[in-house]
């Protein structure tokens, strides 16, 4: 079972520069849809890669779906050679994204984030309009329902804000 708290705490305590995207970002904004993994976009500078290795190392990360015994070293060299990693850890599943379709790398996405606090941890989460744009950019039919939910959520948020301003 994925512990979102443990994963977020590990990243935050190691001061990893990351942005929450995907289903958990939707959940933080109010989507009712369940998700079973944590998706984050991470900064690719050398210092951040070292922090990321240190943060997840104790959780024994391994390539999700890979056959047991496949050699996998969790170190900065591996991160430098790759970009996006779908991992399973002792705290559950996490997707580390060096770039996202429609959003680019961490630095490009950063202006489209807000700070949120959950489990006593402060982290950055992509804004709801940008999350919708990212989901739209992937163009996957399996996301249509999720996009519709996020767009309705945005309508409801704006409706609530305009009511509050009346």
């Amino acid at each position: 079972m994925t512990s979102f708290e443990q994963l977020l705490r590990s990243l935050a305590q190691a001061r990893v520069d990351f942005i929450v995207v995907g289903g958990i970002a939707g959940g933080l904004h109010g989507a009712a849809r369940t998700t079973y993994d944590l998706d984050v976009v991470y900064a690719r500078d050398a210092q951040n890669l070292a922090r990321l290795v240190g943060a997840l190392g104790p959780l024994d990360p391994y390539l999700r779906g890979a056959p047991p015994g496949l050699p996998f070293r969790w170190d900065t060299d591996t991160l430098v050679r790759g970009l996006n990693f779908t991992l399973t850890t002792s705290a559950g599943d996490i997707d580390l994204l060096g770039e996202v379709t429609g959003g680019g790398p961490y630095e490009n996405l950063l202006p489209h984030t807000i700070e949120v606090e959950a489990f006593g941890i402060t982290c950055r989460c992509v804004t709801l309009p940008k999350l919708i744009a990212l989901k739209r950019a992937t163009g996957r039919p399996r996301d249509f329902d999720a996009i519709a939910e996020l767009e309705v959520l945005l309508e409801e948020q704006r409706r609530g804000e305009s009511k509050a301003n009346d």
Partner: protein
Amino acid sequence: MPEHTAPSIALPPDPVIEAYKKDIDRTLLRETLKLTPAQRLQRLQDVVQTMAILRGAARRKA
């Protein structure tokens, strides 16, 4: 969550997504909007935990 500083993004309506919107339960979303982000994440965590327990129980029964 207010988004005061983030650049605005134009999201022109997509006819396919508009069709999907008809099936979205707005009442459910209005309830989650009453929660804080922390409460929403805790709720997600609780659902994942419950699902794990149910799946374990189903496996044991099979």
